[in-house]
Every structure is written in structure tokens, then in C-alpha cells.
């Protein structure tokens, strides 16, 4: 099946005191219609900037998209003018954000904000749009939607607000929903509800989801393919099952080691100990000359510190940016 969204060589930079700093470098991936692709990585790995670059909602300046193509059904979004881009936002691609508490306008009713999104993209009268907004609130399981529609955001809990954000994102019937850490700010029980809701809406609307998260547990629940990002670059790409069973990149291994698991270690008998990855993600303007992960990598050797490994196919349609996996792939 052909891709609905294809990103090629996306590079995003921010201007700093000493010139432009590259925050996302040469990111390429493809999404199939109706599928869920996850981008995982620690804070500062560039995953949110990648997502916002696709919709071009980063403030420019200081941000600039320095290179790459974002092909939506073959049309390069990076070449579109502001007017044309506006018709993409909310209609072809919608986005929900990490902080439901601050992502809604506090002085506008939630109905007003949803109606606004509906009427931006569809030719409906005010009454029709309001009816549609109530229907959308119903679909995201907000109880008593007919009354709730006139509430201001501060009357709603975080989970409810995220549902409102989702309803608003659905207003233009998008083909792709970008969910940037949609459950990070929520209680665990609410997280599960929101994820279940996203999965159900995905099948109802047939939209693709690009899920940005640092939580591998969330990835396991709803994604089919996973991109692992580190310091602005993709270091591994794999189907979700393969990634969990057989991580290729030491960074992915580290992430998995730091994720609580309930079932995988049953045969080991012992309690699974969480192992953290020593050190922190380097600042984008202080990347080491070789592999960006080398200073934290338990398996790093001399070549890692001098030469940067490219992202290369390994096996089963997977990719990895590590000399170790590339050597085994070559010798196997």
C-alpha cells in the first residue's frame, strides 16, 4: 500500500546566539493510511519538533525548516504558501498536544472553539456546526455534551479537556492525527481511556495516527511501527513487536530496560529491575563528533567516537544506526 505521508530528509534548525543549531536532522519516514506510527525518545530528542515541523506550527523565527520534503499524498507541504498550509492544518492533518490544561483558550467556550474549527474547514451554518460539535463531543464520550458545549475549559478536568482537544482535531475529518504526548499529563487510568478512545476513533474515521511519546508502554498499546529518535536523529525503525523482542540499537535497549514490564520477564522468574541510562541527552549544539549516543553507550568502541553511523537497513525491513548491528547484518 502506498504511503499517505512521506517525510524525506527533514532538517529543522533553531537560531541561537552562535548561529543556527540543528535540532532535527535528516529525518525520513513514511506512514500508511489508517496506521499508527510512533516516535519515541527522551525529552530533547527532537520528536515534538519533528511533529510540529510537519504542520509548520513552529514559530519562525527562531525555527526554520532547513531541508527536506513532507509529502502528503505526493504534495510537498514545505513548498505550500501560508494560505494553502492553513487548509492542510486541521483538515488533512490535525494535532493534539501534551498539555490539555493549557491547550484550550480559557476565555472561549469549548463549543466555540470546536465550532470555529468545523466552520474553518466545512461549509456549515452556525446551527449545523453547533449540532456537529455536540455530535463530536458525544463521539469522544463527553457525557451530557449538549450542556457541556457551553462550558469554559476551566470547568473541565484534564482528561475531559484532552477529549475536547480530540473532538476539535476531528472537526475537519483529518486523514492524519498527530498526537504529541497525548497522555503524559494525565492520570494513569485516564491515560488508558484516552488511548482506547484514540484507537476506537482511528478505526471509525480510518485516520493515521502519528504518536509522539517517551512512554514505550503507550507505544506497545496502539502503534504498529516505531521510530526511535535520539539527539535529533532516527536511530532505529522497526515494527513494534520486533522492537520489543529484539532491539537493535543500544539506545533502544536502554529505553526498554528503563520501562516497567509486567509479562515479558515471567519466564525469567526474577523481578524485572529498571535500569536507567546513565547521563543525559546532549544539547543539540554540543553533539560529539561520532555517534551521539556513544558517551552513554555501554557497548561503544573507538570507531563510535570518531565516525557517525548512518541509518541503514538491517533485516526484515528494519533500520538501525549502529555499527554493531550493521556488522552483524553484514556477516549474517
Amino acid at each position, binding site marked *: 500500500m502506498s504511503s499517505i505521508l512521506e517525510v524525506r530528509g527533514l532538517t529543522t534548525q533553531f537560531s541561537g546566539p552562535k548561529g543556527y543549531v540543528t535540532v532535527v536532522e535528516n529525518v525520513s519516514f513514511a506512514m500508511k493510511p489508517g496506521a499508527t506510527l510512533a516516535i519515541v525518545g527522551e525529552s530533547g530528542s527532537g520528536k515534538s519538533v519533528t511533529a510540529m515541523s510537519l*504542520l509548520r506550527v513552529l514559530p519562525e523565527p527562531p525555527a526554520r525548516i532547513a531541508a527536506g520534503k513532507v509529502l502528503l499524498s505526493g504534495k510537498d507541504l514545505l513548498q505550500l504558501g501560508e494560505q494553502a498550509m492553513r487548509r492542510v*492544518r486541521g483538515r488533512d492533518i490535525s494535532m493534539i498536544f501534551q498539555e490539555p490544561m493549557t491547550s484550550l483558550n480559557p476565555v472561549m467556550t469549548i463549543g466555540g472553539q470546536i465550532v470555529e474549527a468545523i466552520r474553518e474547514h466545512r461549509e456549515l451554518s452556525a446551527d449545523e456546526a453547533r449540532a456537529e460539535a455536540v455530535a463530536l463531543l458525544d463521539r469522544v464520550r463527553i457525557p451530557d455534551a449538549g450542556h457541556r458545549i457551553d462550558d*469554559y475549559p476551566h470547568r473541565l478536568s484534564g482528561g475531559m479537556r484532552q477529549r475536547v482537544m480530540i473532538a476539535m482535531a476531528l472537526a475537519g475529518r483529518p486523514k492524519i492525527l498527530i498526537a504529541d504526548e497525548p497522555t503524559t499529563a494525565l492520570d494513569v487510568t485516564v491515560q488508558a481511556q484516552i488511548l482506547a478512545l484514540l484507537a476506537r476513533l482511528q478505526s471509525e474515521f480510518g485516520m493515521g495516527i502519528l504518536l509522539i511519546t517517551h512512554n514505550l508502554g503507550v507505544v506497545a498499546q496502539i502503534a504498529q511501527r516505531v521510530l526511535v529518535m535520539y539527539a535529533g536523529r532516527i536511530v532505529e525503525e522497526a515494527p513494534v513487536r520486533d522492537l520489543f523482542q529484539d532491539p537493535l540499537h543500544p539506545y533502544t535497549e536502554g529505553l526498554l530496560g528503563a520501562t516497567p514490564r509486567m509479562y515479558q520477564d515471567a519466564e525469567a522468574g526474577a523481578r524485572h529491575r529498571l535500569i536507567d541510562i546513565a547521563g543525559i541527552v546532549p544539547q543539540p549544539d554540543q553533539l560529539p563528533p561520532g555517534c551521539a549516543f556513544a558517551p552513554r553507550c555501554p557497548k561503544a568502541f573507538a570507531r563510535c567516537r570518531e565516525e557517525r553511523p548512518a541509518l541503514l537497513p538491517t533485516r526484515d525491513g528494519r533500520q538501525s544506526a549502529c555499527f554493531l548491528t550493521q556488522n552483524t547484518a553484514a556477516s549474517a
Partner: protein
Amino acid sequence: MQGATQGAGRNRIVRFLVRRSAQAGLTLLAIAVLNFVIVHLAPGDAIDVLAGEFGGADAQYLDKLRRSYGLDQPIYVQLFQYLFNVVQLNLGFSFRNNMPVFDLIMTRLPATLLLMVASMLLSFTAGLLLGVFSARRVNTFADDAVSVLALLCYATPLFWFGLMAIVLFTVKLNLLPGNGMYTIGSNLGWFAATLDVARHLVLPACSLALFHMAVYTRLMRASMLEVYGLDYIRTARAKGLSQRRIAFRHVLPNAILPMVTMLGLQVGSLLGGAVLVETVFGWPGLGRLAFDAILQRDHNLLIGILLLGSALVVIANLITDLLYAWLDPRIEVA
């Protein structure tokens, strides 16, 4: 259901007003005491000034005058007498103008209110528009130009600007009147009379508005830029809204809240500015009355005006609070 919530809202507002009015009453009483004490700390009284104007008078006559006006009483007796009167809205008698202070103030109040309201509307609207204009073009030449303009208006002394405006628009260009509130000796219909007052209002209102326009411009620009950086503006952009709609529907209604606070604070300093403007433009308002009252040691009149000024500020703050609750649904009056 809807009616019930509306009724509850009205009740809440009535309760709020009652409680705040009681607070305001106490505040004003305290201000009356302070005003009285401060004014009486200054040396000299109305009789001294009168004596000076007569070119001297014998001490016995002055004592007699003091006795007849009650100025020979100890300060605290005068204070209690004054407060007792104030509570009954009796602000005393202006011996200089030979008129009850309350009546005197009421004859001058409309002119000052007109000047204040006009210049508030002007400065608020102009500052708002310039701030929005500037914020939407941040770091461009237009933005810098507005900033320089605002700085100039901020730094220009009020009286100097007033005088220069008279020189330019009245003396050189002969476009607008530069003195008084209406053309003396004219007998006009109500429409022509209104127009006449409006023409007289332009220069003093603009002079008085200038400084505050600068304050509003800078405040609105900063406030807009702050809101532009917030999460819900990113949401609005991700929805595909136009820049114009984002600016006016999402940024502006949130950015205007600090402006409303400033509006309440402005009333007090506007009254101070009115003294200058009314003096320069011969506007027959309270400001000039206050100025004359100081020179003439007309204590009753002066503290009467000060008290009225305080009342205006208190009322303005009450209105500000209500306005705030109306603009921001998160604030509920209580």
C-alpha cells in the same frame, strides 16, 4: 435551569456590590481623615491668604473671621465636625467662592468627567490598536516606529505638548479652539452646541490621552506577545485559523485583561493630569478648581475635591472588577 443559573448570577453580583460598597464607604472615610490631616499640616489657612490679598489686616479682625468660620477650633474638633458633615454629603462651605463645596464641585464635575472619559476612551482605544498592530509585526520597522512613538509620547511633558498643540492647531493653523469649553457668546442649537464642545474637547483630550496611550501601547504589545507564546495559540494555528482570526479572537481577548487593570489605575493619575490640562486649556473643570483651591488655602474645597477624586477611583476599581469577571470566565465575582 438556564433562568435559575442566571438568577443566581444576578444575586451573586448584587451581594458583591453590596459588600464592595460597604468596603468602599470605609475606604473613603479613611481617605477623608487622611486628606484632612495632610491638608492641615500645610502652614497657613484661608484667612492668612485673604489678609495677604488685602495687603494686611489687623489681628483682631482676622481672629473674628476665624471664629466665624470655625477655624479657631482645635484640629480634632474641626476633623470630627468635618467627618460628621461628610457622612451627610455635606462637604462644607467654600469661603472663597461663597458657595457650598458640594454645589461648587457639581457645577465643575461634568466638564472634568467629559474630559476624563474622552481621554480614557481615546488612550485605551489608540493604545489597544497600536499594541495589536505592533505585536502582529514584531521586530519589523513598523513595530520599531510604534515603539519610538510610544516612547516619545511617554516622555513628553503634558503641559509642553498642550502648549505646542495650541501654537500649532490654534494659532498657526487656526483649526481648533485652544481655550475654554464652548464659544463664548454664541447661541447655538443643541447639535451645533455639541459640535462646538466637541471641537473644544479635541486638544485637551488628546493632550491628556497621550501619556496613557503610550502606556497602553507598550502594555498591549507586551501582553499580546506573551499570549502569542502560549499553548492555546499553537492549538489555534494547528486548527488552520488565519493570522487575523488568531490575533483578534484568541490573542486579543486574553491580552486585554492587564489593560483593564491599568484602566482602573489610570483614573487616579488622570485626575492629576487634568489639573495641568485644564490649566493650560482653560477648561472649566475640577482640576483648575483644585489648583485655585490650593493657592487660596481653601481647605474645605480642596479636601472636597480630593474626596471626590478618591470616590472616582474607588468606583472605577469596582467597575474594573466587574469588567474583569465579564471578560474572563475563570474569575467569578464573590
